[in-house]
């Protein structure tokens, strides 16, 4: 007969989370654009064990992307200006999604449109396809001329896009917010009013770098999105602000490189986290953090993640 104390010790901490209706086995996702369609990393990690795979941003028609150079390393981070290179929604649904479904991955589709109608149509095209668990709205891509960032910086447009997508979809809808705004809370409120089920934050910060020798911008596209540990403090601050004002679950990310980083995000209000740039250094980063989190919970007698989400905001 085991006593009560051992029973408590034997209890496995609960890692699964409900992110606005999307059930994740663990709270660590991989960010859009950093993990391709999953198969790019199949040799390094059991992709089915990842909390959620947010696939590369998808548009209605194929996009070739921006001229190079597309990336440049900066202190504790990198700039990218990929320009949403992707084969279009049909190729995603017919060629990439079946593979992810076969591997029983939790998939979040990421969609990007030039107009509100395009976002709505993309959501409609995904509707009914098994294997997609949620939709992340890319309203914050800094690297495309039309749409993208423009949608994410205007509360009225955020409302319209989210609302239009919600009308065409039964899936949880998760707008990805841009940090390139003056007041992140007003954007988050607009997303909530539009019917968002959760918020993903943050996308990259717009920046640039200069080639001194050739006296011109280093990126072919001049500007790019800054990611990596350099942006972590900004991400934490914005999540803190939004968590206190908007009652939606937050998928938080921005420069997460290890378990401690992930814990910081949770403590300022992220129910789940995403890793991105860190994957380029550690392909197994998402599952390593999830495993580390489980151990940390055991060591700290935490049975539910809700016990730590937002604790640093009180």
């Amino acid at each position, binding site marked *: 007969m085991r006593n009560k104390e051992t029973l408590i010790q034997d209890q496995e901490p609960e890692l699964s989370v409900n992110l606005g209706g999307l059930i994740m086995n663990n709270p660590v996702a991989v960010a859009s*654009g*950093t*993990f*391709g369609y999953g198969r*790019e*990393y199949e*040799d*390094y990690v059991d992709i089915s064990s990842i909390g959620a795979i947010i696939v*590369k941003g998808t548009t209605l028609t194929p996009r*070739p*992307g921006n*001229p*190079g*150079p*597309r*990336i*440049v*390393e900066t*202190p*504790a*981070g*990198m700039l*990218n200006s*990929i320009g949403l*290179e992707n084969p279009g929604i049909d190729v995603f649904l017919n060629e990439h999604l079946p593979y992810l479904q076969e591997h029983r991955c939790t998939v979040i589709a990421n969609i990007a449109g030039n107009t509100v109608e395009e976002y709505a149509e993309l959501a409609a095209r995904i509707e009914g396809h098994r294997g997609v668990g949620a939709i992340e709205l890319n309203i914050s891509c800094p690297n495309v001329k039309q749409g993208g960032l423009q949608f994410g910086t205007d509360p009225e447009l955020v409302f319209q896009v989210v609302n239009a997508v919600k009308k065409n979809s039964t899936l949880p809808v998760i707008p990805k917010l841009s940090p390139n705004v003056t007041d992140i809370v007003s954007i988050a409120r607009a997303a909530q009013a539009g019917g968002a089920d959760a918020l993903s934050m943050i996308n990259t910060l717009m920046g640039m770098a200069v080639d001194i020798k050739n006296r011109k911008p280093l990126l072919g596209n001049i500007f790019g999105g800054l990611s*990596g*540990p350099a942006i972590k403090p900004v991400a934490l601050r914005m999540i803190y602000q939004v968590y206190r004002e908007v009652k939606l679950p937050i998928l938080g990310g921005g420069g997460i*490189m290890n378990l401690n980083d992930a814990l910081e995000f949770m403590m300022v209000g992220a129910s789940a986290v995403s890793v991105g*740039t860190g*994957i*380029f*250094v*550690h*392909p*197994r980063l998402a599952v390593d953090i999830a495993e580390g989190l489980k151990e940390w919970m055991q060591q700290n007698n935490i049975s539910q993640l809700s016990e730590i989400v937002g604790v640093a905001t009180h």
Partner: protein
Amino acid sequence: MPFVEQGLVVRHNQVSRDMWELEFIAPAIAPEALPGQFVHIRSALGINPLLRRPLSLYDVDKKLGSITLLYKIVGTGTNLLTRIKTKEYVDVMGPLGKGFSLPPKGKRVVLIGGGVGIAPLVYLARVLSDRGYQVKVLHGVESRRQLVAFDKMRQIGVDFMPSTMDGSAGFKGLVTELLQKKINPSEVDYIYTCGPEIMMAAVADYARERAIEGELSMEEYMACGVGACLGCARKLKTDDESYVKICKDGPVFPLGAVELLG
């Protein structure tokens, strides 16, 4: 299949003013490594520099399970890399990318390297030589001291022809001039090249004019190294709407397939 492993450094020495050779034991990666492929290596722990550095395979000793890299100091990452000492470990991911293809048996091949671009051609020369191909290697550098692959090429047993800009060894002038003036094109069936893009473009022109097939190896800034981030894209010459990924579709491409700079 690629791996991430901690490679035990067994040799790390400076071979010229700004070039180093790094040899480490990589029991998982070495047996699978093919000429023209690369490894993605962390030059230091910590977050600055953050990203791995793609370095081509200079030589592979399958018996020892070791990989040797030849690198040139170009920035912070490669500068920090020089600090790694023997008996320490390097964090390596690989083998990555699509390597060189081998031409049909009996073809006479010429390898043309510029500067540190000789790196992937050494392992290629070893494999070609082992398989009985007739191999000629042209290496263009500024000065004699940069002919860092000389000993390896001699040990492999290929016909090695250097060119130097200062005339301190071999042919005086550009390696492409050496190619034009000293090589009989009727004795060349296949060309491999790696080096500055302006040089590779000249080699590609030479080959096209004489209807000689071949391949080149490209270099580009990379983040993931596995085809996920689409950061190392380059335009295809044949179709100006599509990009190829240097890391996954390459780094080796047929001569003339990809747009070169300069």
